[in-house]
């Protein structure tokens, strides 16, 4: 085995690990409200979510090989890596991808430790941007798209991140206000029974839609690494094993629950009653589907959080915990710069050591920091037992 192939294997493993963190980071987007209102028991919710994620990832045939083209310039428009990164059997490109994934994973686990929802796509983009700046320079990043076609860091990350929570919040506020006005005279028990059932449908839709979207990004990144190493040549298709392993990785991540984030979203922002849960999910699903139809890629995490905030604003007499919301907003602002900083540092480390040894060092760094944060999380365990306890 050449060093390139060993590094390729390590990159693939790291990409699957990222996919796994992507899964447990996003369970909350689909299921937090359903768990908080008791529409689904916590374990049932994550099982349902994981199954739909798996189905979504498998039925989707979208090929996302050019995913990095949205923010950086390491690939040609057709998806093949640019020539200058292909020296030495693709080693330069593999190291960029490795460092980028490292930044994304570390950011995802850190935000999970603090129970903060943050966008996995933004973390991935951030890591890749940092690694690209460190290796190719500032010109390697597509900061602003051209003309009215939304592209680059501004068009694909910054503007959607600003717009999505606001839009989702307004939609959910309007829905919640109307629903509470219409059902004011109905007894709560009766009303809640119906809205809990409705939530099953809306939460499932969110989970399915997540599967068809998010796993594709990791599939694209792995395929890019395979192409760089010359193991795969087709830029219009993804190897079947990549698709299967990515689908399983994201679904297993989802299944583990990411309870800390579910708790913050389901209990920390607003006390959610079943009508609010249905309004939040209906708002999220609609906003996500419409924006994807328009090609205005909004982040699911930002949309789901905005919707839950909106249901707090829409319900008469409800309180919104703005301190928690503020912490989340802060996390979103620093997602890109911080995952980028980690990506850049990892690239420098791998570059100074050089070649395969450099890549392996970054891998070890990721494993060590993930292990440390996991041990830290055991001090205050959040699981399906206490995920819906009173927020204090």
């Amino acid at each position, binding site marked *: 085995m050449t060093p390139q192939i060993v590094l390729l294997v390590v990159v693939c493993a790291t990409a699957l690990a990222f996919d796994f963190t992507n899964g447990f980071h996003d369970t909350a987007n689909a299921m937090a409200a359903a768990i908080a209102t008791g529409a689904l028991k916590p374990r049932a919710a994550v099982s349902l979510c994981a199954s739909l994620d798996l189905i*979504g990832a498998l*039925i*989707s*045939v*979208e090929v996302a090989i050019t995913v990095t083209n949205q923010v950086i310039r390491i690939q040609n428009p057709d998806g093949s890596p640019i020539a200058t990164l292909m020296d030495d059997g693709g080693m330069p490109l593999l190291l960029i991808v490795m460092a980028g994934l490292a930044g994304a994973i570390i950011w995802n686990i850190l935000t999970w430790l603090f129970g903060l929802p943050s966008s996995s796509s933004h973390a991935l983009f951030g890591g890749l941007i940092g690694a690209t700046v460190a290796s190719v320079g500032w010109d390697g990043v597509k900061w*602003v*798209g051209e*003309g*009215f076609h*939304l*592209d*680059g860091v*501004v*068009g694909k990350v910054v*503007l*959607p991140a600003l*717009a999505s929570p606001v*839009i*989702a919040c*307004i*939609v*959910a506020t*309007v*829905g*919640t206000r*109307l*629903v509470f006005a*219409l*059902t004011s*005279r*109905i*007894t709560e028990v*009766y*009303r809640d029974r*119906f*809205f809990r059932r*409705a939530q099953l*449908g*809306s939460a499932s*839709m969110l989970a*399915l*839609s997540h599967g*068809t979207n998010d796993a594709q990004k990791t599939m694209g990144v792995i395929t890019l690494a395979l192409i760089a190493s010359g193991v795969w040549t087709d830029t219009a298709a993804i190897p079947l094993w990549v698709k299967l392993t990515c689908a399983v990785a994201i679904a297993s991540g989802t299944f583990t629950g990411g309870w800390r984030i579910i708790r913050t979203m389901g209990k920390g922002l607003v006390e959610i009653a079943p*009508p609010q849960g*249905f*309004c939040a999910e*209906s*708002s*999220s*699903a*609609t*906003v996500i*589907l*419409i*924006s*994807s*139809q*328009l090609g*205005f890629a*909004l982040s699911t995490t930002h949309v789901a959080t905005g919707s839950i905030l909106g249901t707090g604003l829409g319900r008469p007499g409800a309180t919104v915990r703005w301190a928690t919301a503020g912490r989340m907003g802060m996390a979103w602002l620093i997602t890109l710069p911080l995952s980028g900083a980690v990506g850049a540092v990892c690239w420098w480390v791998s570059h100074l050591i050089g070649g395969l040894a450099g890549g392996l060092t970054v891998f070890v760094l990721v494993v060590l920091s993930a292990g440390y944060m996991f041990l830290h999380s055991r001090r205050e365990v959040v699981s399906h037992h206490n995920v819906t306890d009173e927020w204090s």
Partner: protein
Amino acid sequence: MDQLLAALDDSWRVLVLGIAIGAGLPTLFALGVKSLAWGLGGDVERHAAGEFPKPHLPGRIIAYTLFAIVILVAALGITYIVAHGQGWVITFDGIVPVFTPK
């Protein structure tokens, strides 16, 4: 600047359609629950002590019609997700979705 305008242009579309469908569906559903409450009578709706609200057939018919509409829209949503994942292009002729394989 063009990027900002493009984002604003997309944002208001998402907002308007989002309110129409994303807030509209729960509203229809709530109307359905309210109609069913009227249709069933009894203690489902709050009422003065000593009264017993009568059931009303039209209430039940309206309720089930509304629930059917909500389920239909949800089914369309799922169809959209699956078709989109399968690489189909979905366009809208008025409000009727048209599915075209790529």
